[in-house]
């Protein structure tokens, strides 16, 4: 649906040029919710702005809906933009216009007949749950309501792609949740492809199917949310994952490792999906001659799949412990020894 091919964006600075995007290659499938995460300055904003040419890439190719955007004439590009909705961090509504007119704006630009505008806007107001606010002005609304107006406006022209530029970053956690629910509903009910950029891993965990980690203008990791969360390959991805998964091993565990006798006894077990439901530890305690001591653990849900993370200590003979580890491997559960120097 959206393809970035060797996209590079360079800003000319006074003393030196800044490379905001460095040879980015990314493909976003139709109907998916794709999240791009990175620290500020990683190039996220430039990336999303290249998807509707609010910013033109210095080089490379951007394709949306099989259209090579950079080859379009200004008129064709405006046409193409009606198929790409955009939602902003600071809403960017017209303060001088009512909620109704704000939502109707994209339709008014094309001189859509009045009755059609009215029908569509009422439909959208209903969809975002603001039917009673049609005649209000943006400054009479809360942040969450403003964003709902922004979302409704972006959907007015029935686009097939929605770009969300930090759409929830200016909102409180509760409101963020409801806006994310709304985006999910849009994706499901209208089958709209959503590209969302954010610095909050929670947003990715809540709604995204795929995630791309951007650092210094480069794609450092990209894949399904499940894969990246369960097995982050890069340090930066790992840090982002830790920020929401809370799977960092506490210091108390490391202190245990300092003791000689606890060596080779502490392990991290990662349960994914169905394996999280299996009574693995109790089986081990029953069938093997080891004591199982859970030092740390949590279970979260990722896209409806349970995802568990346990740090355990096995007490017993080395030989017996090896048998336990073999057993765990056979269950297709990831197990890794926790070493004192992994910090």
């Amino acid at each position, binding site marked *: 649906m959206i393809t970035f091919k060797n996209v590079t964006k360079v800003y000319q600075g006074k003393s030196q040029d800044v490379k905001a995007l460095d040879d980015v290659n990314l493909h976003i499938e139709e109907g998916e919710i794709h999240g791009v995460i990175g620290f500020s300055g990683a190039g996220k904003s430039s990336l999303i702005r290249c998807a*509707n040419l*609010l910013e033109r890439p210095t080089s490379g190719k951007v394709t949306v809906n099989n259209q090579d955007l950079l080859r379009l004439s200004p008129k064709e*590009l*405006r*046409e*193409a*933009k*009606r198929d*790409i909705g*955009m939602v*902003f961090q*600071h*809403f*960017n*509504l*017209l*303060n*001088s*216009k009512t909620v109704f007119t704000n939502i109707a*704006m*994209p339709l*008014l*630009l094309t001189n859509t007949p009045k009755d059609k505008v009215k029908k569509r806007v009422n439909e959208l107001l209903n969809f975002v749950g603001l039917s009673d606010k049609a005649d209000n*002005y943006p*400054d009479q609304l809360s942040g969450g309501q403003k964003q709902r107006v922004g979302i409704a*406006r*972006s959907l007015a*022209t029935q686009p097939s792609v929605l*770009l969300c530029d930090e759409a929830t970053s200016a909102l409180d956690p509760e409101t963020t949740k409801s806006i994310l629910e709304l985006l999910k509903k849009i994706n499901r009910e209208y089958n709209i492809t959503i590209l969302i950029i954010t610095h909050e891993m929670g947003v990715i965990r809540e709604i995204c199917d795929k995630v791309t980690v951007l650092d210094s203008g480069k794609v450092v990791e990209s894949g399904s949310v499940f894969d990246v969360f369960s097995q982050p390959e890069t340090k930066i991805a790992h840090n982002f994952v830790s920020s929401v998964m809370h799977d960092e091993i506490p210091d108390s565990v490391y202190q245990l490792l300092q003791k000689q006798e606890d060596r080779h006894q502490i392990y991290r077990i990662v349960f994914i999906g169905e394996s999280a439901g299996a009574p693995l530890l109790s089986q081990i305690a029953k069938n093997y001659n080891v004591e199982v001591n859970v030092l740390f653990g949590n279970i979260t849900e990722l896209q409806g799949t349970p995802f568990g993370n346990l740090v355990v200590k096995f007490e017993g003979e080395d030989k017996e412990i090896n048998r336990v580890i073999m057993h765990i491997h056979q269950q297709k559960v990831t197990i890794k020894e926790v070493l004192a120097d992994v910090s």
Partner: protein
Amino acid sequence: MLVDWAQISEALWETIIMVTFSLLFAVVIGLPLGILLVVTRKGHLWENKYVFTVLNSVVNIFRSIPFIILMVAVIPFTRLVVGTSIGTAAAIVPMVLFSGPYIARLIENSLLEVDPGVMEAAQAMGATPRQIITRFLIPEALSSLMLGITIATIGLIGASAMAGAVGGGGLGDLAITFGYQRFDTMVMLITVGILVIMVQGLQSTGNILSKKIRRR
């Protein structure tokens, strides 16, 4: 000393005519000029270094000439436009030339205050440059524009007083010729009083209108 009320009301009428028509023409010149000063600057809709530099300089030059000098300097031009260099109609020409560039600056300022995010949203929804100006920039700046126009109008009342120098008539002229030169304190006080009331009234009206547009 008797106060000639007919004379005062005639002078008031002349002031109103001068200010109203000057304002009208000054806005006709200043609005497009102000818009161009915004959209031709760097990174904007119609970025054009040359157009911007030329317009910017012209506006600065006109704004740096004292009104009394401008009035005399443009006499040949005034004669060309209205056929005479004396009278109320003749005073309007230098007043427009004085106020137009001023209004352009005020409009430029108001338009620059509009949140760039709104323009970004407009571009994202595929608005043409003309639509961005008429449907986004101007409506969003209208409240602030209203205050700018109010300031310009009050400036024009001040200028109209000086227009007496080219026989433009009006309240300022009356205050100078009768009040100042003939020591008719009463006439001077009355004319100044009327001017004060006019300015107060205009400012309040401008504030109310601006507030109404802003709807806050």
